[in-house]
């Protein structure tokens, strides 16, 4: 699968934060800010530079560790869903 990794990182960070932000429970506890999107993108880029590859688990981990601990379980679900959707889009393209 030919994927522009940098574009995928940016897309994932933006999509994840947008979906995460919509949840009432997350809004109540710690609504994600643009800083979180930037943090996800930077963390994934650092990992990509180090390993020269990114696995689906890396995307999920980045979303989870940049989320406040009390909402990390929800973050994991949203991140898995986000990366699944992006992978599907990339395959169909």
């Amino acid at each position, binding site marked *: 699968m030919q994927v522009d990794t940098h574009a995928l990182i940016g897309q994932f960070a933006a999509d994840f934060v947008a979906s995460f932000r919509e949840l009432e429970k997350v809004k109540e506890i*710690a609504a994600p*800010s643009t800083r979180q999107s930037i943090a996800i993108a*930077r963390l994934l880029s650092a990992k990509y530079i180090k390993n020269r590859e990114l696995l689906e688990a890396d995307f999920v981990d980045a979303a989870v*560790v940049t989320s406040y601990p009390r909402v990390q379980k929800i973050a994991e679900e949203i991140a898995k869903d986000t990366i699944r959707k992006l992978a599907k889009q990339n395959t169909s393209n």
Partner: protein
Amino acid sequence: MTENQCDSTREFKEQFARQIASRPSEVKIVLDGQYKKAYELLDDAVSARLTPIIVGPPGVGKSLLARKFAYDTQRPFYELFFDELMSPSHLIGTFNPAVLVSKGYCMEAFEPGPLLLAMVGGGVFVAQELNRASEFCQNSFLEPLEEKTLYIPRLGKIRANDNFVFIAVANPYEFSGAHRISEALRDRLHVWISLSYPTKETELKIIAANTPENKLDPETMQKIYNIIDQSRQSEEFSKLVSVRTGISIARIASRYAEMDLLTDSVLVDIAYQSLLGSVTERNARWKENKLKGLIRKSLTCK
């Protein structure tokens, strides 16, 4: 000053000079399991110029991880433990009143605090117990974390050295004495690294690594682990049975083993003394009966 006083002052000065730590000592840590993952994440966060916060109950190795990172990356290490009484001047520094009177507001009169030293010298600054810091102190971190600058009254604004690293360390919010981290600060803490009590294999390795003259056979090590594990699961304990408790028991037990005096009954006594501080119950008789009963029961666990 009498001759005796002079001698003791001289002796103290000589001993003091010998004891000054010019180089940081090597950090021994078992980089296994959750610690390996946490260390890699810490490294990734710093490479990505993100601010990490290590969260976990007392005694799981949060500070050790930060210290190890500073040692490995050859950065000077600074830390400050927060409480209600800590003020921003403890972080940034203060003017020495005596020098201030004679020379005025100048660099010579300024005594820098650990945060400023780390920012100027490119060191690692560890904010220990961050969720015990007052809002006043928490606000002092906003500028250094966001802009990588710091304003020092009367002297001006400095920009942080490129090697400057800020690591926050905190207990989980449910621990007593912990406060809320303000929303503004929380948003600037980018990577949340969680540590919990290690797995059995990792904890046994940690205990062995911290008991230098380890004279304990695997069976005794297993018993010590069982005592710690059972205590953590018991409701009568506050959640403070840390890895340190296991190390304490192993170290004392090792001394007894060296003298061939270690029996189950001795091990029960050692564990009892080491665990006393972690029990919430204050009744002495209860402690004696219930705690020793729990320890004895742990010895028979597989």
